[in-house]
């Protein structure tokens, strides 16, 4: 047992660090470190720079154009990127549909989609949830009827992050309405420019317009855009949920945000002294810092198991629960640190506004399988209840 990194891993960290430091555009870095909103263009620019370096798909195997990094290298890459203020890469292509395509897709799909995900030419979004089926995904109702050489899709998807920027959406649709819940579902790749698709933003309480509803009205999808077998979509969806969770805890970003919290607490004053020196507030920061530290080790335990090619198990649910609790605690403390002035949402909507961030981060315990669902999973699979 040894928690230090190997010399090779340290050299790798150094390489990542110097790349990020030399290539990350200063304006993007500034926005991230100040907690300002990132634009879609920020993501794309950074992704392209990585692509030029050969790191366009950091988590992919070499075979599909990835750098072939192991779990530890991936972890180091994410940590260094987040610490330096690089934007998080959009997960929908790289971490979600990409692995599904290279594992289950046809050769044509691999050829057509994978290079464009890697190069940031295509942006993707995820069409899973529906108004009537959130955590209970298998109850989805969007229909895809086979007609000729394609499907005709009708229905509605919701809570779709960045649908407005997406070139493609991957969707779970019902292809056999008579089959039981989890059967009869297929996995389709749909061009967002297809006639019949309407995107409607859902304004969230922080004023953000990240998420959307997407309506499908007689949308024609060629049959070659179905991944794998008809009615076997649930298998691919499950694979996806179980895949790549190295970073689900968000430790790297939370470490950066912790630094920002400390910065805010050193700017604010209470009783004539920096707030960070107030014992009560310092103890609250210490508590979240310690929680995060423990989570980091827990995360490394999972990463280390992945390195040994053991697949990540239900412990990723634990990472998700604790990770989101810490993310929420951090924004809550930033808001409380600012005190009464946090009430005011200054007119620069891109600026870091702790109260808006506090509101926005409530989503983390809801999306990606709510924390209640994660608890059900742990209860069933780890505790055997």
């Amino acid at each position: 047992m040894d928690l230090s990194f190997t010399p090779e891993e340290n050299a790798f960290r150094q390489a990542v660090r110097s790349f990020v430091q030399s290539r990350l555009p200063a304006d993007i870095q500034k926005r991230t470190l100040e907690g300002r909103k990132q634009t879609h263009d920020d993501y794309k620019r950074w992704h392209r720079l990585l692509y030029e370096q050969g790191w366009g798909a950091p988590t992919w195997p070499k075979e599909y154009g990835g750098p072939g990094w192991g779990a530890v290298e991936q972890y180091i890459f994410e940590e260094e990127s987040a610490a330096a203020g690089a934007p998080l890469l959009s997960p929908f292509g790289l971490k979600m549909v990409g692995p599904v395509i290279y594992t289950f897709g046809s050769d044509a799909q691999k050829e057509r989609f994978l290079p464009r995900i890697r190069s940031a030419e295509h942006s993707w979004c995820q069409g899973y949830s529906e108004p009537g089926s959130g955590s209970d995904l298998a109850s989805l109702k969007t229909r895809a009827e086979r007609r000729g050489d394609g499907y005709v899709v009708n229905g509605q998807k919701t809570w779709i992050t960045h649908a407005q920027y997406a070139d493609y959406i991957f969707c779970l649709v019902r292809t056999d309405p008579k089959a039981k819940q989890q059967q009869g579902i297929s996995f389709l790749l749909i061009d967002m420019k297809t006639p019949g698709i309407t995107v409607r933003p859902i304004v969230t309480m922080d004023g953000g317009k990240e998420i959307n509803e997407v309506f499908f009205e007689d949308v024609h999808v060629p049959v070659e855009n179905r991944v794998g077998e008809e009615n076997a979509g649930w298998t691919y969806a499950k694979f996806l949920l179980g895949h790549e969770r190295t970073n689900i805890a968000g430790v790297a970003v939370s470490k950066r945000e912790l630094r920002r919290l400390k910065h805010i607490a050193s700017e604010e004053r209470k009783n004539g002294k920096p707030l960070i020196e107030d014992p009560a507030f310092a103890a609250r920061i210490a508590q979240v810092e310690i929680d995060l530290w423990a989570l980091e080790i827990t995360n490394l335990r999972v990463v280390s198991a992945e390195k040994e090619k053991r697949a990540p198990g239900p412990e990723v649910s634990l990472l998700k629960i604790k990770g989101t609790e810490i993310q929420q605690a951090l924004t809550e403390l930033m808001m409380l640190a600012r005190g009464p002035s946090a009430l005011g949402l200054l007119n620069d909507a891109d600026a870091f506004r702790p109260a808006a961030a506090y509101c926005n981060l409530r989503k983390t315990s809801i999306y990606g399988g709510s924390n209640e669902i994660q608890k059900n999973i742990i209860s069933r699979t780890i505790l055997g209840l």
Partner: protein
Amino acid sequence: MDFDLTKEQQQLGDSIQRFVAREYAFEKRKGILRSEEGMSREVWAHLAEMGLLALQVPEEHGGMGGAPIETMLAMNGVGRGLLLEPYLASAVVATTLLRELGSPAQQGELFPAMAAGERIVVLAHDEPGARYDLTQVSTKATRAGDGYALSGQKSVVVHAPSADLLLVSARTGSGVSLFLVPWDAKGVSLAAYRTLDGRRAADVTLSEVRAGREALVGAEGAALDVIVSVNDVAIAAACAEAVGALEALLQTTVEYSKSRKQFGVPIGTFQALQHRMVEMLIHVEQAKSMSYLASLRSDEKDLQARARVMSAAKVIVGRACRNVGQEAVQIHGGMGMTEEFHASHYFRRLAALELSFGDTEHHLEKFALNSAEAT
């Protein structure tokens, strides 16, 4: 000892609840929220008609002279309906300040107009960096000719963009004084924005703003104690508003859990959620108890005892705001995150109330200190 309302109070409470239900439905509120001013003059006039803007107005000016229970009932309604109008700021805080400090001339001029909903007055006291320390006032009022010249910064003055007059606190020598300053006085500039909970607010900059002697409210240098004392009245009112919002949000959440299905059954049948909603209920009931106490003691003369009550109430209510707000959003799932649905509006108002008039930690510390001194 009884917790019963008089018949008149009961009627008042009912009429407020009716008004809120009928005239402040969520869809109508959305329109008000989106409007440029962010409040409804029509609703304001209606509140005036109901006599609600006169609860703090002295009896000799046709008001009720304080009326803690009636104020509590009004604030319950304000909370339940998530009213965007400056009830707390103008009809409670500013009116009480003017009742305590205003000259007969000032009262004679302002109270009829304020009670009629024709004039909105807002206290501009907090300053950048003051945190929750009410004594920190850097704005200065220096003698200038027959009157004063005010210069300084006031931050997050909620409803300032709707105010006809600002009650500006400023240092005069060793004391703090209050001045009535028209919103459009020369040298006053407002940087307006929205607050977390959708209200209009502004940072106010005062540059050599001239105020005549008639603008001075109360004796020179004697305002701070009253500002501190009226802050207690504000806390009691804020607690009552929170209780109205908490009750509504809990109800909304329970109802949502009964209708929203997952895995073929209403999510309200899941025991884990049931127990969490019970915790929410306990928070609401404890908050309600302390809100009663705070309102009943808001005119208590022993200021240290009163401060203890207010801090205790703010701690209990603050924790309730946090727990109930967060749990309600979580139980609503994605719906709870949206601007469209009312849960998030309650969530934000509760968060804002927690940050107003001293947050939970501030009052917990204050209570502990106050206890140590009392022993």
